């Protein structure tokens, strides 16, 4: 089963091969989990969302368009499931957009950036500092960065998953990197 493409696996499963579905789940469940974690804080919540997303995908497998990427499709489902979950639990999504707006404003007011000192990347404590910065990013920026760098998706695919305009995704990504750079920069810069 490992040699087949996602579309072939879907076709095989619809033809009655149970192992094809197992392979599909095996390929993506961790990625879906980590993507769900960008929406929710608790591991248990992310697990529940992951289960729910795969169940929804299974229910709609017949409607899957073989021309599209399975990964993009399952991530879209995961995103919608996360939004439903957050709405049900009355989490304030709007607070995130406010945070994003404030960050965009502060980045616009920034002066032109100087490059970061190269030794910074090798310095002690860099990894810890970077981790803290990433955790502190607004959710939508963190998602975009995660999908781009960790999940290795293109901007177009990210735009499709998050149902956002392509330029919004690109500018969000740029702002995220700018913000990370700004926070990493030594204080005298």
């Amino acid at each position, binding site marked *: 089963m490992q040699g087949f493409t996602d579309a072939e696996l879907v076709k095989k499963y619809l033809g009655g091969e149970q192992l094809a*579905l*197992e392979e599909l*789940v*095996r390929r993506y*469940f*961790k990625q879906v*989990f*980590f993507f769900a*974690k960008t929406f929710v804080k608790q*591991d*248990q*919540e992310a*697990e*529940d*969302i*992951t*289960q*729910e997303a*795969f*169940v929804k995908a*299974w*229910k709609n497998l017949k409607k899957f368009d073989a021309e599209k990427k399975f990964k993009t499709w399952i991530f879209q489902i995961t995103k919608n499931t996360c939004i439903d*979950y957050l709405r*049900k*639990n009355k989490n304030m999504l709007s607070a995130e957009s406010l945070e994003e707006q404030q960050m965009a404003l502060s980045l616009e007011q920034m002066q032109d*950036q100087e*490059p*970061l000192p*190269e030794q910074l*990347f090798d310095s002690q404590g*860099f*990894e810890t500092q*970077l*981790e803290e910065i*990433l955790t502190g990013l607004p959710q939508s920026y963190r998602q975009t*960065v*995660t999908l781009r*760098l*960790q999940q290795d998706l293109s901007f177009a695919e990210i735009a499709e998953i998050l149902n956002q305009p392509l330029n919004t995704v690109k500018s969000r990504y740029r702002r995220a*990197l700018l913000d*990370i*750079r700004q926070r*990493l920069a030594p204080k005298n810069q």
Partner: protein
Amino acid sequence: MNDSLIQQEKMLEMAVNKSLSRQPVPLSLENLFHKILSRIAAEAELKKLKAKLWVISAALAVTLGVLVLALAASFAAFSKTPSFQFLRLIFTDFKVVADNWQDYGFSILETLPLGVLAFLLSSILASFIVFDFAARQLGNFRKLLNAQHHGKF
């Protein structure tokens, strides 16, 4: 300047990617794969049961209809045949019936509306079977629904 900024951006992306990859993997993630498959299997079972329930509902409706018909036919048949009149004698003249049990027995057997009786008993048997089957399937359905709700958020 721009080249170094671009290069640095690449370094930053690599650093961010490395940081994201170092995210702690929860222990429960190992079970998540099996949980997902179990959940899908349960949903598939539920789907089959839902389809079965339609059939069971139809069977129940038909069985009940036939039972009502059988009861009505039996009532009509019994009231027409003398067997009902003979049966009354058990309550009004039990001693006489007991003294002449052979003749009485024959008089009942001769006048029983056997066809209608067979139809009634068959309907009752079919009802028992269908109700029993329906009850068991409903029990399974409820168990699966409960399991689904416990797993749901």
